[in-house]
């Protein structure tokens, strides 16, 4: 690790916000040395509790995240917030607007908010968001709130490894839980029915209850359903109390821990191997050649994928 990294790490550990911020940029951009930096940060992690906040676009995730953070700060905790918005698949640019709703909280003492773009890389966000959460953890934050982009597949990946997941639902979206049907339902520890002053809120609660009743695992701890009006701060104290209680009692068994580590490890290895191949392709123009071969009908994607991963396969065959 070069002296720049070293300096940033030392400054970050002594509480420098600019150093924390720059470290995040470097790790997020995967600048050379990021892995060594994370190796050094890793032993300092594990103290913060990670809370994932997910839900459909416009459900009030940012507002709610901000409110929850405010109450945690009032209770004397320090909070890191990671707010994720999508990158444009065309330009690679992004408009990160979550902070518009975080005005009250983002400048409070003890709060550090970071906006992140998904940056297009398939599954890439999961890992870098996790890395940023770890850096905030090592910096000494008691809680890290990860606010995801609107519902899809990707943000389920992000919140898979957090300690507790809040799923935000709102009235007025089809039959209430249309937007969060698959996947998200299974990962929720608490359902928050936000905008509860709107017509149809009780119906959403009923829909979720029905859905949970139909769940096959009758022994499993049923998720809570809590109504809030985030713009007015109503129901948030109760939500935070319940969240803290649940964090205390939630039994994260060995199997869960193992699964979480496994998940992360596989993700990292995948990214590394693909990264190496991409780098090689970029340097040699191999990707262009491969694409042209396929276009000209000389080869097919399957053969090329097999060929390019052959060295890895060969290595394990030797063993």
């Amino acid at each position: 690790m070069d002296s720049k990294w070293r300096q940033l790490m030392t400054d970050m550990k002594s509480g420098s916000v600019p150093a924390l911020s720059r470290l995040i940029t470097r790790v997020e951009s995967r600048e050379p040395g990021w892995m060594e930096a994370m190796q050094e940060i890793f032993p300092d992690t594990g103290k913060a509790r990670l809370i994932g906040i997910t839900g459909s676009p416009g459900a009030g995730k940012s507002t709610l995240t901000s409110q929850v953070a405010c109450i945690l700060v009032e209770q004397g905790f320090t909070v890191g917030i990671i707010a994720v918005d999508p990158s444009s698949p065309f330009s690679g640019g992004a408009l990160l607007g979550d902070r518009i709703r975080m005005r009250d909280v983002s400048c409070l003492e003890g709060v550090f908010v970071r906006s992140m773009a998904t940056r297009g890389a398939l599954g890439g966000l999961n890992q870098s968001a996790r890395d940023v959460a770890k850096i905030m953890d090592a910096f000494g934050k008691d809680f890290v709130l990860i606010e995801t982009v609107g519902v899809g597949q990707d943000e389920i990946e992000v919140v898979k490894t957090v300690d507790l997941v809040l799923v935000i639902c709102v009235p007025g979206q089809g039959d209430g839980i249309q937007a969060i049907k698959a996947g998200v339902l299974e990962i929720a520890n608490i359902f928050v029915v936000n905008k509860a002053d709107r017509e149809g809120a009780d119906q959403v609660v009923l829909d979720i209850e029905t859905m949970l009743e139909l769940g096959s695992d009758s022994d499993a701890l049923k998720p809570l359903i809590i109504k809030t009006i985030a713009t007015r701060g109503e129901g948030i104290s109760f939500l935070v109390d319940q969240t803290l209680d649940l964090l205390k009692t939630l039994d994260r068994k060995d199997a869960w821990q193992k699964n979480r580590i496994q998940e992360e490890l596989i993700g990292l290895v995948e990214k590394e191997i693909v990264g190496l191949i991409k780098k090689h392709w970029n340097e040699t123009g191999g990707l262009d050649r491969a694409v042209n071969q396929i276009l000209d009908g000389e080869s097919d994607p399957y053969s090329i994928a097999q060929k390019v991963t052959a060295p890895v396969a060969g290595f394990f065959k030797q063993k």
Partner: protein
Amino acid sequence: MDRTIRVLVSKVGLDGHDRGAKVIAYGLRDIGFEVIFLGIGHTPEQIVITALQEDVDAVGLFVLSGAHLPLTKRVIEGLKEKGGEDIAILVGGAIPDEDKTQLKEMGVLEVLTSGIRIDQVAQLINDHAFTRASHKRV
């Protein structure tokens, strides 16, 4: 440079006319920047804290209230004080010519008035970010 350029775009002080800020924000996004958009009604101090947390390469301050000189000064001083002196400042709005000179003397990278092209703005920020990354940053 591989690193994605990050820019903070915000209205500062008390005016709600955010069309110009939005035009610049959307334009920079379409060029491939990550734009942290703050919206209206922020104090210079809030902008300083945000710029540091987000580790942006540049801050775009958009003022149509006439208070561009004192507000910009407070942002520049705040950044200097808190260790963000290498973050470029751009000021947008209806800025009189004599104030443009004064803003530039204060250290503003560019003053964006109507008619400026988005690719010029992007190029300026890009050049600044490159210098920032290769020389000044720890």
